[in-house]
């Protein structure tokens, strides 16, 4: 039966124009989404490049000023910014700590339109960490960006629904089902074969279109990435076809099928992710950033009032600085950096709470993500793209680490009252982003596939054991 079912179903689809419409629609959506995603990646690369060029120019200026100072010449710059002072280098000639886009970043914008891609940590403090915010924009999450992940997670299920909602009901409504059912075949098996063919066709079309997109619209051949995207997409497509199969066997006429499937789309794609996001915010609210900034300001003010005392305590803790400075000359920045350390220590519980709540929110979403394959698919694509929350968290931690390195590199010069010289330029630390190797999305895709087959199997068995007249005579 399957040979005839496949052959003639294919003919029917071709002649009804469905295949042409589906192919063009998928090609159009995938191409537009890829171009859109590429544009975002390009903008991100340009932003990072501009920041790096800016630093290069600033470094050239710094070296020129250092050269003048070292040759005993007068320089026309504010004394705070003359790079012979280590704090001037630390604050006015920072490095760029950039998170370069990954090869598949065009696939999913993920968190990249919510977080920053580069920062310039200074010696003066960790205010830059406020640029890393939690995700609290459900609207942004709801509509996302028009990238490949959006097409796959949001739009592809709608196309699948339009392609499969009436496989059985259309036959019943047109009157051909009775003639079919009078043949020595099982109607359940017939529906299964018909929907399997449509699944295969959709999958093949998606694979072809994704390959076209990756080969012609994306620079660099990333076939491993293409394979990973295909596996995630295949699992997600299978899930929606399984649901369509179950609905075809369980529900009645075409309009009811369409409503039920659209309802499921709303639940899995919109409702569950939104509810989980809201639940995370309600159960684990993030500490107010305004309060955090206020607290930071108050602490700084308090520290300013007690700067002498703080510096004394600091030098007591760091006798190496006191010993190496025979003049014991203490300026503004000596006091400021010592107080900054104290501010940082006192702020730690607040920043830790911030991180902890974010971790709790993510743990909640991670625990309940199995409620919606849409979340899993989106997460998998974000991971492949290097734009997941975990990627940005990794980047944030690396930047904080680099800021510490930057500070630690220049602080001894400050307290030892040593000048910064052009010979020390080459020793300045630089930032290199190391992407994390996240969990492989294959397991999640495999689980979705198993669940989908399970849904199909249960629906098949229920229909098989049930009354066949329900299928044939509505």
């Amino acid at each position, binding site marked *: *039966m399957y*040979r*005839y*079912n496949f052959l*003639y179903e294919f*003919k*029917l689809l071709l*002649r*009804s124009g469905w295949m042409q419409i589906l192919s063009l629609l998928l090609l159009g959506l995938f191409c537009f989404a890829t171009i859109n995603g590429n544009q975002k990646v390009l903008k991100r690369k340009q932003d990072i490049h501009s920041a790096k060029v800016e630093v290069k120019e600033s470094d050239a200026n710094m070296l020129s000023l250092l050269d003048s100072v070292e040759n005993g010449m007068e320089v026309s710059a504010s004394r705070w910014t003359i790079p012979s002072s280590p704090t001037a280098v630390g604050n006015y000639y920072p490095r760029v700590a950039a998170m370069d886009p990954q090869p598949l970043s065009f696939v999913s914008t993920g968190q990249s339109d919510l977080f920053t891609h580069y920062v310039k940590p200074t010696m003066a403090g960790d205010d830059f960490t406020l640029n890393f915010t939690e995700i609290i924009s459900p609207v942004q999450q709801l509509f996302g960006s028009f990238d490949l992940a959006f097409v796959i997670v949001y739009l592809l299920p709608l196309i699948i629904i339009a392609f499969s909602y009436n496989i059985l009901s259309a036959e019943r409504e*047109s*009157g*051909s089902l*009775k*003639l*079919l*059912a*009078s*043949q*020595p*075949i*099982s109607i359940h098996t*017939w529906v299964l074969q018909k929907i399997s063919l449509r699944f295969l066709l959709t999958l093949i079309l998606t694979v072809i279109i994704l390959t076209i997109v990756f080969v012609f619209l994306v620079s660099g051949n990333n076939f491993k990435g293409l394979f990973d995207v295909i596996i995630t997409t295949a699992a997600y497509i299978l899930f929606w076809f399984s649901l369509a199969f179950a609905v075809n066997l369980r529900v009645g006429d075409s309009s009811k099928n369409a409503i039920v499937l659209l309802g499921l789309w709303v639940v899995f794609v919109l409702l569950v992710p939104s509810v989980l996001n809201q639940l995370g915010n309600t159960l684990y609210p993030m500490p107010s950033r305004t309060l955090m900034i206020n607290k930071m300001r108050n602490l700084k003010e308090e520290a300013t009032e007690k700067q002498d005392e703080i510096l004394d305590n600091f030098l007591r803790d760091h006798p190496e600085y006191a010993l190496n400075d025979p003049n014991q000359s203490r300026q503004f920045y000596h006091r400021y950096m010592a107080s900054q350390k104290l501010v940082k220590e006192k702020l730690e519980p607040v920043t830790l709470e911030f991180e902890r709540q974010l971790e709790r929110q993510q743990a909640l979403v991670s625990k309940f993500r199995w409620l919606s394959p849409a979340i899993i698919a989106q997460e998998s694509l974000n991971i492949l793209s290097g734009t997941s929350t975990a990627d940005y968290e990794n980047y944030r931690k690396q930047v904080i680490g680099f800021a510490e390195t930057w500070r630690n590199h220049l602080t001894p010069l400050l307290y030892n009252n040593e000048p910064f010289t052009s010979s020390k330029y080459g020793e300045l630390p630089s930032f290199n982003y190391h992407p994390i190797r996240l969990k492989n999305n294959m397991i999640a895709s495999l689980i979705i596939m198993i669940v989908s087959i399970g849904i199909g199997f249960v629906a098949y068995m229920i229909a098989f054991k049930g*009354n*066949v*007249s329900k299928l*044939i*005579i509505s």
Partner: protein
Amino acid sequence: MITTDNLTKQYGETIVLNQLNLNIGANEIYCLLGANGAGKTTTINLLLGFIKPTSGSAFINGLCVSEEYIKTKQYLAYIPENLMLYPTLTAVENLKYFSGIGGKNLSKSQSEDFLNEAGLQKNAFNSRISTFSKGMRQKVGISIALAKDAKSLLLDEPTSGLDPKSSNEFGQLLHKLKDNGVSILMATHDLFRAKDTGTHIGIMKNGQLRQEYATKDISLPELEQAYLEAMNYKEFVS
């Protein structure tokens, strides 16, 4: 052979078919007459296994339909009132598809032979069904039955809506099938066609088989009179 043994179907309190006993042998065309709701289509649905009987049994070629749901279909062909085939496929393709899913692979020439035997004009073989009249679609339906080599044929008001010529051609086709040893059960409102085509006639009312005749034993006016009496249409009974 088509047999029913005290076949009964009940929905809640309503009995739609009450202890029907039929025995249609090879070379027989049994025409079931009756008003709408008499139980004709229910009988056919029960024989097809589309619905399950409340009590009693239906048999096709000696196989119980309830127990051998798929197997009985191998010996059975069915033509509904409005035969809906796939409009974008041609007559040959429809025939090949319905035969193919039933396990019978037909070549193009074999398909054309069956369509020819069913009386379809040659120039329509490769035309899409969407361009066909109801009579032409019924002929494709017959060709599906011929290709299946079914020993039992169930027809649910197959001539309703057909013009007299098409209806007559259809009757002749049924005779041909009957002569080839096929058992035919035809539900119809058409007394003339029943008398002309059938070998036996049964009149049903409210789910019960009220009267049975051999067509050779009854004239058309007598059949009409018997039908009106059975239906209790007193104002028309002479």
